[in-house]
């Protein structure tokens, strides 16, 4: 077979299923980038937003989150605030009392 460009030759070498999968992933990457941008506007990072929304049992997928970020900015702001609050609560729960276990030397030096 004759391929007039390298791109066409590459398309023939890889399987069709690979290209069909890439089409789907292209959409997913676009949504993820959009959600990252919108969450950065509200002072959050994308992994933190997604993880904390899942922990709050809000099961919205990336397509819908990207649509909300574009067309419903107030709703996205409230979702970002929810994720931020859940994140802080998670940190507070992890820190506990603020006391350190005995016999452990950590960065925070206690004065006597």
């Amino acid at each position, binding site marked *: 077979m004759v391929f007039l460009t390298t791109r066409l030759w590459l398309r023939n070498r890889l399987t069709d299923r690979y290209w069909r999968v890439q089409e789907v992933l292209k959409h997913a990457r676009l949504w993820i980038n959009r959600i990252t941008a919108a969450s950065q506007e509200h002072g959050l990072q994308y992994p933190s937003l997604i993880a904390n929304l899942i922990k709050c049992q809000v099961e*919205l997928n990336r397509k*819908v989150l990207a649509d909300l970020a574009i067309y419903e900015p107030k709703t996205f702001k409230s979702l970002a605030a929810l994720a931020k609050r859940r994140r802080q609560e998670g940190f507070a729960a992890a820190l506990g009392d603020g006391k350190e276990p005995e016999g452990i030397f950590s960065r925070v030096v206690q004065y006597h």
Partner: protein
Amino acid sequence: MAAATGASALTGTFGRLVSACRRSILAPSGPGAAFFWSASRRLSSQSTPYPQGYVPKTSLSSPPWPEVVLPDPAEETRHHTEVVRKVNEMIATGQYGRLFAVVHFASHQWKVTAEDLILIENELDIKCGERIRMEKVLLVGADNFTLLGKPLLGKDLVRVEATVIEKTESRPKIYMKFRRRKNLKKHRIIVNPQTVLRINTIEVAPHLL
């Protein structure tokens, strides 16, 4: 010359002795150090008394993450009940414009308003013109409030109705495999059934707790 050198030598040694004494006085070592410092602080009445547990700011005196204070739980509960009451009132009096909803249907999530068209890539086994209620609603919003489900909202809270408009087939898509010199050639035409739905109404009821 000799006298001058002698005097300078004396002063030099005397200075070193004095500095040694001063060093030893100013920096007592051992467990008595803290007691010495606190005693001196108590004795000197002119200095401002530091609060209990005061630690001067150094790179290790506090954790490297920013300190976050969560609001008081009782006050927060009051604020939450107030917000819920206001939203309930808004829904009851109908102070909202166009509602949008996020609906889980046919294994996809759709962001939907009234008079929307939806294309579903399979057959639903429903006759054309029949009215459907979509029950899995994840989110309902208006201009001034949003209701989020964890993960779904109650059926007594939201009602999303749709009608089946059209049942059609997709364009013929070609599925072909060809491997040169290996006698591999498959040729198949795939036509998917499709359904078109129109979302008629989204209704909210004031049943918030």
